[in-house]
């Protein structure tokens, strides 16, 4: 079927869902045709097909955007709300956490909030301290939210379809640096079930558990170390929360060693939850402690040389793997 970029994959997934279900609609800043189909072009071409009611360009009002999506979802529609960059969730956390996440529970199941919040972020583009954070751990800590992120175009399509199908709110995180990644087009109707991790690369010596852009680094390192006979298994969570504990534990039970890896700052990151769970449930299988790799614990700096020093690097990953397999 040819290759598609992650940008196209997301666009196709939304297009298919809108064609199939009149209740699916998008809202966000600059998303309509008049504005060129979104700053990252994810919704380009859709206004022409579905009209301005279903591709709503909004004022710069994130609280109103998320609130509107919640209300529409309560009324049975399936809104896809865009928060242009992840840091801006700071102005609308109340709507996401106190409302979207809790209304099903607080209503005793009388209502539900089937909505997707799309947002993007990523370190390495020189956007500085207020436009680069990875905040998935905040959402993972909230009961009632699902958190999803793709590491390739094909998964992006499948995860987006599954997120739109989901009857609970989904935080869908896109990494700016991954929009250009290409995959074989998985074709119409393709879905990747939420809550299922992928073993991106099989290995027997150690499990490298990650998601999003760092999956690429993990695979690159695994291939490099394979040359010296070190067999690294790469687990791509895909759904960050609730994550696929069964697949993660099976992998570590097999390898006996684990490292978590994410771009988000390491302290109190998602890696902490995974590491704490692994050591608790696989104590007798572990050959050593679970190690964690994450971004430097500082705001994201502007200067490129600092930004590159901030991000977890391949050498860091290699070092951690050697440290882990080194001990017996």
């Amino acid at each position, binding site marked *: 079927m040819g290759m598609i970029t992650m940008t196209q994959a997301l666009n196709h997934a939304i297009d298919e869902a809108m064609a199939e279900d*009149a*209740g699916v*609609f998008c809202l966000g800043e600059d998303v309509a045709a008049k504005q060129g189909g979104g700053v990252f072009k994810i919704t380009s071409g859709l206004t022409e097909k579905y009209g301005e*009611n*279903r591709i*709503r360009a*909004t*004022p710069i*009002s*994130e*609280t*109103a955007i*998320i*609130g*509107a*999506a*919640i*209300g*529409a*979802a*309560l*009324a*049975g*529609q399936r*809104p896809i709300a865009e928060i242009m960059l992840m840091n801006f969730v700071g*102005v609308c956390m*109340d*709507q996401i956490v*106190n*409302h979207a996440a809790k*209304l*099903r*529970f*607080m*209503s*005793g*199941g*009388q*209502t*539900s909030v089937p909505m997707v919040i799309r947002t993007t972020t990523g370190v390495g583009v020189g956007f500085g301290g207020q436009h680069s954070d990875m905040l998935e751990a905040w959402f993972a800590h909230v*009961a*009632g939210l*699902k958190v999803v992120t793709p590491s390739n175009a094909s998964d992006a399509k499948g995860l987006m379809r599954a997120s739109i199908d989901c*009857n*609970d709110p989904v935080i869908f995180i896109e990494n700016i640096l991954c929009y250009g990644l290409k995959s074989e087009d998985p074709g119409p109707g393709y879905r990747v079930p939420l809550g299922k991790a992928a073993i991106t690369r099989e290995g027997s010596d150690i499990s490298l558990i990650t998601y999003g852009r760092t999956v690429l680094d993990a695979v690159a390192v695994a291939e490099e170390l394979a040359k010296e006979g070190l067999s690294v298994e790469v687990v791509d969570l895909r759904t960050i929360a609730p994550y696929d504990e069964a697949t993660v534990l099976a992998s570590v039970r097999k390898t006996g060693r684990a490292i978590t890896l994410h771009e988000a700052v390491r302290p109190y990151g998602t890696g902490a939850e995974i590491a704490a769970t692994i050591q608790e449930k696989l104590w007798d299988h572990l050959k050593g402690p679970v190690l964690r790799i994450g971004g430097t614990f500082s705001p994201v700096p502007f200067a490129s040389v600092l930004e590159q020093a901030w991000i977890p690097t391949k050498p860091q990953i290699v070092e951690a793997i050697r440290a882990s397999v080194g001990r017996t």
Partner: protein
Amino acid sequence: MAEIDRDKLRDIYVRTMKVNRTDEKFRSLLMGGKVAVQYYCVRGQELVSAAMMAALNDDDYVVCTYRGQGEQTAKGIPPEKWWAECLGRATGTCKGKGGTMHITHPEKGIMVTTGVVGSGLPIANGLAMASQNNGDGKITVVSFGDGAANIGGFHEAMNMAQLYKLPVVFLCQNNRYGEHTAYADHTDSVGIAERAEGYGMKGVRVDGNDVHAMYGAALDAVERARAGEGPTLIEAMCYRMMGHFFGADFSYMPPEHIAEMNREDPLPKLRQVMLDHQFTEEELDKMVADINAEIDTAVESALAAPLPDPRELKLDVFEEEMA
């Protein structure tokens, strides 16, 4: 001011008294120490809620606040389900999981009750957006206070609603206080209604204790929304005749204010209007007696109802049960 026919007057009177009797009953239960839950009294604001709800269809949407007993009762939530929820019973409309600040009852259009000030407005826009998208002809009313008019969500929601001409009515119940803070200490605005103009929206201020003024404004706003003419901001002037929540002190209210609010009590005024329209004292007393009986039965059944099962903590977090 349009005249209100007798049937509608009766309807408004009954809704008003249901709200009032429910409030009285709740306070007497709390006073007697029979129950101990957080309850936000609506004494003084009964007519505002009743008249607004009386202007809606059964399936129109409503979003309200922790102080939402008026909208909830006047929109018609079955008393036994409402009381069971407030008393934390398994038979409550939210299975006892939501409670007094989160009453929800979609069958009567009560879609969200929020405990976060101002957070209902953006959600109301979404309900109205769904109606605008699918053409179901419903409109949405969101109720909030004067203090809520100072939070960001109010502003964003007002601007967006007008931009899209959403079928929504913003009902600001200006009871002159936000918790312990008097109106003049939280804003320099002449009134909240004046803010509508800044969004190009229609805004009106009405005496929420005058049934003709209040119902008239409610009906206009509902008709505009239903006709696709867009949102209206109604600032309904009223008084909060009790503390912020049951038991809260309100020594910070100046005596002149208390005297004024007692003078303006909506109930004697409404009763007089009823008498002027040839309802007899007997008829009115009968209506109230029936309401009291209905409430007493509801409270009895709620008190006798079972408590929720702890297993409920695993249900309704997500569609699928938690492991």
